[in-house]
């Protein structure tokens, strides 16, 4: 398959899927090795930068997703009045940071770092699909462990959890 057709097929698949599509799935469908494919997608990411384009490709956890360009948000807002804003309170954002850095993490650990109960924040973050249950901890009651989602990565513009801004190492000081 030539590069042009591959690009068209990728755009088509990402458009239909809506959700992120993994590099592996794209590679399987197109029968192009992952390395070559990655180069093609990176070219596409550049192509989308052209100022006649209103969408872009976002990389999340080795998957790709089509998203609208943030600088055109004003038009979308005028047309659809979407509930785009995450609408998270300072408390929810703090809770989210702790989960992002400490994941997988239990509610009681989050509570102890914040010094207050985080139940309501956790409920809100679950509802917003920013976090999810990722398992159960050992120990009494087998408490739920929380981790962040791909939605979290996308909304914060992170390719993976490794791209989180560095946090002060508390135990080195």
């Amino acid at each position, binding site marked *: 398959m030539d590069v042009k057709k591959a690009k068209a097929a990728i755009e088509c698949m990402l*458009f*239909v*899927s*809506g*959700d992120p599509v993994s590099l592996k799935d794209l590679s399987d469908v197109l029968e192009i090795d992952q390395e070559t494919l990655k180069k093609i997608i990176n070219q596409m990411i550049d192509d989308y930068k052209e100022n006649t384009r209103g969408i*872009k490709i*976002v990389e999340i956890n080795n998957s790709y*997703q*089509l*998203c*609208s*360009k*943030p*600088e055109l*948000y004003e038009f*979308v807002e005028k047309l659809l009045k*979407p509930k*785009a*804003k*995450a609408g*998270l309170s*300072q*408390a929810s*954002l*703090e809770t*989210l*940071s*702790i989960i*992002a*850095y400490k994941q997988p993490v239990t509610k009681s650990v989050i509570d*102890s*770092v*914040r*010094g*207050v*109960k985080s*139940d*309501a924040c*956790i*409920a809100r973050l*679950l*509802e917003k699909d920013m976090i999810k*249950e990722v398992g159960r901890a050992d120990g009494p009651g087998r408490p*739920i462990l929380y981790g962040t989602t791909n939605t979290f990565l*996308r*909304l*914060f*513009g*992170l390719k993976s959890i490794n791209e*989180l*801004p560095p*946090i*002060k190492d*508390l135990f080195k*000081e």
Partner: protein
Amino acid sequence: MSINIKLEVFEGPFELLFHLIEKNKIDIYDIPIAEITEQYINYIKMMQSLDIDLASEFLVMAATLLEIKSKMLLPKIPKEAEKEEDPREELVKKLLEYKAYKDVTEILKQKLIENERSLCKDSSLADEIIDSFALPDRLSIEILVDKFKELMIRKQSQKDIEHSKIYKDEITVKDKIVEVLKILSIEKMVYFDNLIMNCINKLEAILTFLAILELIKQRKIYVEQASNFDKIIIRRR
């Protein structure tokens, strides 16, 4: 005369402490605990006098601060002085950890503002195409049952979280005062241990303790202890 009160609302005790530390330009590694404790308790009193609902965590922190203060007032036993442990250490560690997360939260917030204006499509088009494929002759009932269980669990955990929220709002020191007085209206005396043992978690135990202190202050009850380490007895006055 009109009084203008500009009162900041703090999410939790750490936030309030940080506010006090910053306001007083205090070195976090050398907190003047007596001063901070006083300011902290004054703030809580002000909140209470304004009838603002105070999360019980604020009271827990007040107790912690008082404990540290009393430890620092105690004369040091020479033997222990060698490996001198600062009673403030634990609190400082927690404050620093909280601060670190607060700092990255600001950075993340900026990232969110930049990126949340980028929207994606839902998967309904893909769902539609998947559903347009011809159905196989046989579908798996297990998959259907698992899906339903998944949904029910999701719903249940949402409910659990709602319940625990209500529970948190429910207990206050006032409730505990009423409870202690009620017990003492039936019984002549009650052991302190029993009151504490009946608490379902640490928070409730602390609230019970604070309720007892308040009742002593109000001269509604008195406590006695025959000798060191004996059971503490609480009686009606």
